[in-house]
Every structure is written in C-alpha cells, then in structure tokens.
C-alpha cells in the first residue's frame, strides 16, 4: 500500500499543506535543539575562557587558589 497523502489540489497552497510543512521543518530543527550542548563545545568555551588571548585583564580560572566571591 502506498503512503496515504491525500491528493491535495494541484498548485493550491492551502493551509493544510503549509501547516504540515511548518510542522516538519520544526520537527527536524527541534530534534537537533533537543540534543543540547555537546561536550565538545562546552569544552571549547571552557578552554578559550581559561587562555583568553588578547584580553589581558582576564585572570586565569581554576588554577589559582583565589576565591571569586568578593567580586561585587
């Protein structure tokens, strides 16, 4: 048996087709969004953050025995 797409009017951009397309597009997109942040990127940002080139005011993080609490 063939898939049951209803034979919709030719050339007609009807609302049903449009909502189906919108739904498929978001389903495809949201499937990736739901995967969250892969470690690779969290790691990347962490590393860059630690070695911040060109912005000398940034202090190294994590490897100093300094508390950050009193900042504000």
């Amino acid at each position, binding site marked *: 048996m063939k898939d049951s797409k209803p034979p919709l009017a*030719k*050339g007609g*951009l009807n609302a049903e087709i449009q909502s189906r397309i919108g739904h498929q*597009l*978001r389903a495809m*997109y949201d499937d990736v969004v739901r995967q969250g942040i*892969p470690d690779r990127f969290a790691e990347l*940002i962490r590393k*860059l953050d630690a070695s911040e080139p060109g912005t000398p005011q940034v202090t190294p993080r994590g490897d100093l025995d300094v508390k950050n609490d009193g900042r504000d």
Partner: protein
Amino acid sequence: MPLTDSLRDEILASVPNLRAFAISLSGNGDRADDLVQETLLRALANIDSFQPGSNLPAWLFTILRNLFRSDYRKRRREVEDSDGNYAKTLKSQPSQNAHLEFEEFRAALDKLPQDQREALILVGASGFSYEDAAKICGCAVGTIKSRVNRARSKLSALLYVEGTEDFGPDDTVRAVIGNR
C-alpha cells in the same frame, strides 16, 4: 564588549540553535558541528564588535550563515552525503514511516535555492522575525518575505504536488492511456 561570564554563558546557550541551523543548512552533521565550532571561535575573537544589548543569537547566526556561504562556494559540488550523515545526528531513530517522510522532507529542503532555504529556516524554525532574518541575510525585509513564500510554495510543490503520481493515475487517465 569584553567577554563577561554572562555573555559567555549566553553564547554557549545558543549552541543548540546554532547546530540546528547549521544542520538544516548543510544537511550534514559533522560539517555542521565544524561550522558551529568555527562560529564560536570567530565570535569570541570578535567579541569586541558585539554591541551590548543587541540580539546575540542574531549576531551568532549571521557569523554562521556567512561562514556557511563562503564554505559552500568552496565546496560546491563536493560529495553530497547528507542523508547518511544527517541520520547519524538523530538521537532516536524515528519509526520507519516517519523516517521516510523525514528523508523526503530533507531531500525537498535540499532542492531549494540556498537563499530560500536559509530564509525559511530562520523564520519558520529558528523563530526570528522577518526583520532579524533580513539583518542576518543582509537583505531587505520584503526580500526575506518573498524568499520564504517561494520556499513554501516550492516545498509544497515538491512534496505534495509533484508527488501525486504516488497515487497512481486516476481512472480517467488510466482509461485514456489504456493502462491494464
């Protein structure tokens, strides 16, 4: 502005959306992640040019979109392996029917001209306003609107009109062509 903790967190929080955009544009999971990585590196290297209070996702999407386009020009006509690679990026395999429908949709999306595809994704999936999408693509709002409309009508033609042969010729046609 300098890279503050909150800005860094916001950039990281944009990653899922950037990946979805990259995969939707390129149809290739591995390449998409490379694009996202390159985007993050560029963003951090150019963080001084980000205007505080302006739309961070739009700024990041602009970087990714421009990287994709320059990369695309280089790679044009290179191996297309979108189906296989895309499937790998899916966490859960959809049921077979849903999977077929998904592949069909993906294939149709890939047939759109790039301008139309990116406009449709930005507005229809990423949720940007026409105005923000126009800024990201560096064109007029009216241009985005017409690209989105053309993308929609082309997709519907590809998926729901050209596909009508799936139903087989109707009785009248069958009688005319003498199909037994």
